């Protein structure tokens, strides 16, 4: 066991990436995730890695594309407006079936928005973001320890399935400090015979590309990619259930909103109200099964979000609209209080009977 240290969420991501064998970081500073770049700037040169502050987010994501094509673990990080800029590159990386980690420490939007925490990039992260038929595996950590753990996991899943993975955090998760343990990660070896690292004159050239002018061929690559996605949906979906078994009202929340919701669940239980929480840890694949199951006994669901209501659509889909789904939210950098969540719970209980 390594010693517990206090770290900011952003720093934990950076250190965990290094532990996972990532030796290439490309980025451009933006609040509230700049500590990731700062940490990498300090550490990478000392361990023979590369830190490069690109001239823009567009440039950084294309550097990621390049290194990913060469088969090395690579990442970039940004916050909402910066992640929008990266979308073209992310689509290319997905189209070329390359592993990479993209971190989004979200802030309020749209536009330049603000710098306070938000979860309003849920659609962008889970529904494509860039153009074309593709998906990212999206992790939504809810503690500094999880920021580290799912960074390491993200690199593994990216390599295992050859696809870009996103860690979707928010300003609070990035800025807060909690005790974290960072043991040396076991770095698994994956087949990278597809990488463009030089042929040594011994084999045919590998080609990394996302352009298919022949529509039959492009359709086939999309079909194949979606077979991979189907496997991921089966194998990689993660979630946490908290007091769901007998719950009349089930909260659904991820990241910082799930921690606030947990406080509300505890307070509700103290008052004798049967309330539980389902916390998606992967936002894609979305935990459909536990929600479907909960819909058999719960009278209603409340999606707690730092947005105008984005995940709520997936909650409705997962529960097949069998039960009412309400929204409890703040947006633009504001954060709902446990009291606000508790009020929503009471309102729903009075409506559903």
């Amino acid at each position, binding site marked *: 066991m390594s010693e517990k*240290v206090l770290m900011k969420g952003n720093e934990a991501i950076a250190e965990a990436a290094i532990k996972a064998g990532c030796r290439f970081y490309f980025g451009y500073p933006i609040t509230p995730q700049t500590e990731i770049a700062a940490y990498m700037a300090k550490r990478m040169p000392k361990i023979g890695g590369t830190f490069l502050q690109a001239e823009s987010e567009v440039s950084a994501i294309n550097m990621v594309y390049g290194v990913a094509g060469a088969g090395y673990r690579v990442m970039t990080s940004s916050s909402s407006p910066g992640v929008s800029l990266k979308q073209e590159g992310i689509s290319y990386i997905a189209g070329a079936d390359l592993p990479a980690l993209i971190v989004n420490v979200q802030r309020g939007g749209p536009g330049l928005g603000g*710098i306070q925490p938000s979860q309003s990039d849920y659609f962008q992260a889970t529904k494509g973001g860039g153009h074309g038929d593709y998906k990212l595996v999206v992790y939504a950590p809810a503690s500094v320890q999880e920021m580290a753990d799912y960074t390491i996991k993200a690199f593994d899943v990216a390599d295992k399935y050859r696809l870009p993975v996103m860690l979707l955090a928010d300003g609070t998760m990035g*800025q*807060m400090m*909690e005790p974290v343990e960072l043991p040396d990660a076991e770095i698994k070896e994956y087949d990278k015979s597809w990488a463009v690292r030089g042929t040594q004159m011994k084999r045919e050239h590998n080609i990394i590309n996302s352009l298919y002018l022949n529509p039959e061929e492009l359709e086939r690559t999309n079909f194949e990619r979606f077979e991979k996605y189907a496997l991921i949906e089966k194998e990689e979906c993660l979630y946490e259930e908290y007091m769901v078994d007998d719950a009349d009202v089930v909260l659904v929340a991820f990241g910082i909103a799930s921690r606030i919701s947990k406080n509300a669940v505890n307070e509700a239980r103290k008052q004798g109200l049967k309330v539980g929480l389902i916390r998606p840890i992967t936002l894609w694949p979305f935990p459909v099964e536990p929600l479907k199951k909960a819909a058999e006994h719960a009278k209603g669901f409340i999606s707690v979000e730092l947005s105008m209501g984005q995940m709520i659509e997936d909650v409705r889909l997962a529960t097949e609209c069998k039960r009412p789904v309400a929204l409890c939210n703040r947006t633009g950098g504001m954060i709902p209080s*446990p009291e606000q969540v508790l009020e929503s719970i009471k309102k729903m209980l009075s409506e559903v009977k």
Partner: protein
Amino acid sequence: MTTQILIAGFGGQGVLFAGKCLAYEGLVENKQVSWLPSYGPEMRGGTANCSVILSDEPVGSPIVSNPDVLIVMNLPSLDKYEKDVVKGGKIFVDSTLIARKVERTDVDAFYIPATSMANELGIPSLANMIIVGKMIKETGIVTIESACEAMKKVVSARHQDMLDANIKALNAGYNY
């Protein structure tokens, strides 16, 4: 048991640092802890605050909106947060910088001239740790020994000369 602490003042007074020390003090005593800063474009002279939670159970929301303990190092912070403190909570006031008294009667108020004490002790930048020392004494949230132990983790290797100064400040507040 869970203690929610809010520390507020001007940027540059070491408000965030004081919170970080408290979090480490909790860690030394094997408590669950969280530290969340206000972050924004403000630099020295702007407002700064941080939420610190020390608990025997896993910390839920890291955001402190109704503190059990409030430490204020300037008047705007007292004006803003006095009403939020829970009934029976404790408010610690740097009485060098804040002339007025706490108006509420359902909380315990403690006044310590931390800034002038720091100046007299020749450690003018450490009023923050003096007031933390006083808070530890009055709340018993951690022991003074743990607090001093934690300083060794917080003060970076580059600034070891500051370690003694910080411990001096903690003790000055504790014994006030």
